[in-house]
């Protein structure tokens, strides 16, 4: 099994897609809940597996293009088939996933094996009928959106008009129409004329969930820009600019690096945005640009270890963050296979672990605690014992229920609310 690089529920939560470093996409489907076994609430089983991207070679630059799937985004379902976008560093693809559970039988001109029948031998005409067959799930690439990005794609986002989507790389954001693969509009370009002057890159981007003209993008300097596509074709001038003033007491050489935003997500309501930087999660009200309304410490005990984390490159890890369906709880990952949830209303938070050794299937997860200094209590783990190779970068929350998917390196964990 390969390292999972993205996790995403579809709009109903019936399907869960994962992308991995090897370019594969695996889709899980939730079982229909049966009345016979009410304690077994719908579990997720493998529905379809396909190779989305292959490794490529850029001959002009003599560099490999990784097949790793950076992001998957589902389209809302409009017919019996499912559609999703998957992207690697350079190319976005639209995949159609459809079921086939019937096949036609009783052709006139060919027999069941497919061999052609001699027309002169046919004496009777029959109408082919559809007969049930074993369910087959097929994935076919319907569109390939290529050659539009010089730099590495970090985000894709489907617009609420369901006709367009955007793809963002380090310096540019392009707007696509699903039907057109040989053109895209460039809507943001922050590449300086002289690359020597480059000091800031785009780290994530997303469309507003309801307003198809609005989108946000985050930067490596900890800022978020909200843009309105009605204002101009090239959205280089932002409509809103979100930045928290720096705390001078906390300033260090690593201040900029840890302020770099690794993920930005609109709330389902569209009223708030959530950003994840190295040590915190911030919730911003779209109506207030000068500071976030809430700040949550994810793993502040790492603040004194920044130099070591810089040395081993962990400081550049890009953690994602997610909202629950009602926007009341937010979740993000950490190290040592820990992930954290913050309840925005009660202000309570919990640290849980995704690991086979420390929890049995269907057992309730035990909250974990990291001890900072001094005496370590029995169940606590000390900061120095944390395994920094076990990082949870990708998580997803079911759109309406309390079911979460957590990717721990090459394992996928699915957790559900406790059944009473």
């Amino acid at each position: 099994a390969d390292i999972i690089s993205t996790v995403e529920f579809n709009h109903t939560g019936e399907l869960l897609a994962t992308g991995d470093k090897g370019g594969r996409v695996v889709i899980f489907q939730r079982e229909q809940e049966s009345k016979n076994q009410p304690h077994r609430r719908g579990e997720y089983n493998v529905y379809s597996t396909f190779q989305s991207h292959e490794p490529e070679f850029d001959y002009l630059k003599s560099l490999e293009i990784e097949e790793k799937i950076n992001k998957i985004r589902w389209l809302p379902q409009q017919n019996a088939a499912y559609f999703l976008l998957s992207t690697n560093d350079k190319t976005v693809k639209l995949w159609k996933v459809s079921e086939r559970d019937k096949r036609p039988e009783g052709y006139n001109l060919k027999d069941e094996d497919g061999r052609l029948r001699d027309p002169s031998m046919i004496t009777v005409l029959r109408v082919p009928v559809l007969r049930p067959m074993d369910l087959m799930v097929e994935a076919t690439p319907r569109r390939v959106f290529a050659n539009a990005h010089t730099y590495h794609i970090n985000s894709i986002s489907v617009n609420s008009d369901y006709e367009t989507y955007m793809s963002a790389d380090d310096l540019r954001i392009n707007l696509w129409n699903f039907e057109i693969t040989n053109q895209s509009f460039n809507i943001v370009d922050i590449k300086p004329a002289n690359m020597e002057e480059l000091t800031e890159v785009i780290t994530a981007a997303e469309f507003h969930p309801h307003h198809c003209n609005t989108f946000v993008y985050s930067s490596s300097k900890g800022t978020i820009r909200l843009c309105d596509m009605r204002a101009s074709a090239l959205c280089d001038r932002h409509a809103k600019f979100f930045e928290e003033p720096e705390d001078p007491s906390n300033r260090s050489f690593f201040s900029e690096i840890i302020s770099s935003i690794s993920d930005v997500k609109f709330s389902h309501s569209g009223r708030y945005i959530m950003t994840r930087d190295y040590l915190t999660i911030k919730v911003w009200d779209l109506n207030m640009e000068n500071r976030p309304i809430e700040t949550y410490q994810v793993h502040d005990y790492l603040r004194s270890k920044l130099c070591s984390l810089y040395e081993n490159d962990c400081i550049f890890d890009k953690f994602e963050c997610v909202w629950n369906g009602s926007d009341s709880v937010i979740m993000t990952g950490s190290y040592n296979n820990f992930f954290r949830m913050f309840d925005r209303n009660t202000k309570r938070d919990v640290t849980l672990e995704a690991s086979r050794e420390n929890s049995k299937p269907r057992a309730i997860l035990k909250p974990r605690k990291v001890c900072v200094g001094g005496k370590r209590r029995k169940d606590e783990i000390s900061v120095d014992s944390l395994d920094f190779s076990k990082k949870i970068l990708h998580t997803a929350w079911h759109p309406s229920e309390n079911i979460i998917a957590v990717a721990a390196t090459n394992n996928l964990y699915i957790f559900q609310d406790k059944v009473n």
Partner: protein
Amino acid sequence: MFVRGLKRKCFDGEEDIDGTLAGIKAIPSYNLQRQSLLDMSLVKLQLCHMLVEPNLCRSVLIANTVRQIQEEMTQDGTWQMINTQSTGQASLDRLVSTDILCRSSREQAEGKHVAGYSTFNKDFEGDQAQDSSETMSTASSVQALRNLQSNVWEMENPQENKGNFQKSLDQIFETLENRSPNSVEDLFSEVDNSYYDLDTMLTGMMSNTKMGHCDGLETFSSPTTTTSNSNCKSDLNELDHIVEILVES
């Protein structure tokens, strides 16, 4: 992620230092740590896997850190101090790295232009339509540069390319004098050996398979690895020769 030949002094645990003692000892310690951070950052900028394009965000953040340190050191006056230091005082590594920084800042100040590269700037903008073979071969040559140093966006900035390349080479040359053959081999294992075979480079013969650095060695160079200093010296001369060609083109 290994870091070669650097003192492992970090800012971590600084707050553990006693108050009054910190007042006396903190200042040199801070400079030392800052220098160590600078060294580490420079190494990070250079030692990136070159098979896949390195992460631009990471490179930009590291470069900003280096710039920040540089600015602070200039304000401190520490910068002038190091500039005028003679050899033999601090460790060789530190001298080499600060020399590097001096050179790059000087180049930035003077805004040097190398004629052959200036047209390059525009052409390399991921523009697929490269017609002239001349541009192609220049592209491949710069590719050789990139194999040695890893700042992606500097592809677009040839003069800094040359500066970085120069300093990477210098770094290798200097440490070569003083290190054992084993570490020399290690040093060169970092370098994509396709570099040595310039012809192969220019004909764009990078095969379409995943190559580890070790595989690169096998594919392009002769089976013998550089185990003796004399081999290294001849390879260095070749490198030198290649640099001359690139500079003059």
